[in-house]
């Protein structure tokens, strides 16, 4: 919930005061925050004592339990988005 409130605050700030010429700086700061978040996720995982043990002993079952539900979710959601939502697709922003 707090995430939504903060995002709304950002929307408000952009409506009241945010020069369009700072858009590029905003994107760069987003990239830095993103990489820091991914890095911290990696640190949390790597610092778990049983991280490697868990991966080696229960790896194959865990692969099935992540892959099948994730793929089935895509299979379920894709036709729903085609029917009910805007069907936008494109190349990643990096390529645009």
């Amino acid at each position, binding site marked *: 919930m*707090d*995430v*939504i409130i*903060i*995002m*709304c605050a*950002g*929307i*408000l700030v*952009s409506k009241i005061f*945010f020069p*369009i010429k700072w*858009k590029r700086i*905003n994107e760069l700061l*987003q990239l830095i925050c*993103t*990489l*820091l*978040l*991914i*890095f*911290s996720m*990696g*640190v*949390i*995982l*790597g*610092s*778990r004592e049983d*991280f*490697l043990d*868990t991966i080696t*002993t*229960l*790896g194959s*079952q*865990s*692969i*099935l*339990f992540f892959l*099948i*539900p*994730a*793929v*089935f*979710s*895509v*299979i*379920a*959601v894709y036709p*729903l*988005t085609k029917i009910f*939502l*805007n069907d*936008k*697709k*494109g*190349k*990643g*922003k990096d390529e645009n």
Partner: protein
Amino acid sequence: MVYLALIALIGGIACGMAGLDDTLPVEMIVSHKDLILYALMFLVGISIGLNRGIIKKIKEYHIRIFVIPAGIIAGSLAGGIVSGLLTGLPLNESTAIASGLGWYSLSGVAIGNLAGAQAGSIAFLSNLLREIFSFFSIPLIAEKLNYPTCIAPAGATSEDTTLPMMIRYTDGETVVLSVFNGVICSAAVPFLISFCYNLF
């Protein structure tokens, strides 16, 4: 971006395994990750605000905004049933594990308490792998399928950890849908785990 994300993830795991998580810069980053997420969300809000007309578009979705979380939950539970049949795990455990929707910290602990350490470990690892898989499947899905479908593998993580990839590879409208989906899925996870474990 994918390569940078991969380098950041592997670098983080290496730091954690090498015991560098106690050093000042790393500890600063990890202990302030909530603040970093808040900063990111604020910046995302600015991006959305700069993109005129998004909020109007979201309002136009009305009840249709629920189709993505509904599809994710239905697909994940169906996937849990199939995974259970393939691995021989009881249906209540397999559907409960799939009900984590990528929220590995909560599902690992919750299922560990309900079904024991082994099921808890599978829940932790499978949901963690789902999150990592989401990270790297988002660019591909955005290119081959469509933007809203990028939210599907992310599940409950679409409002936080996988949001940066959504911001990078989709558009402002999909980012708002992604946050909404994350809130709904996150709220549903504890209920789904308990429901599936007791029902099947």
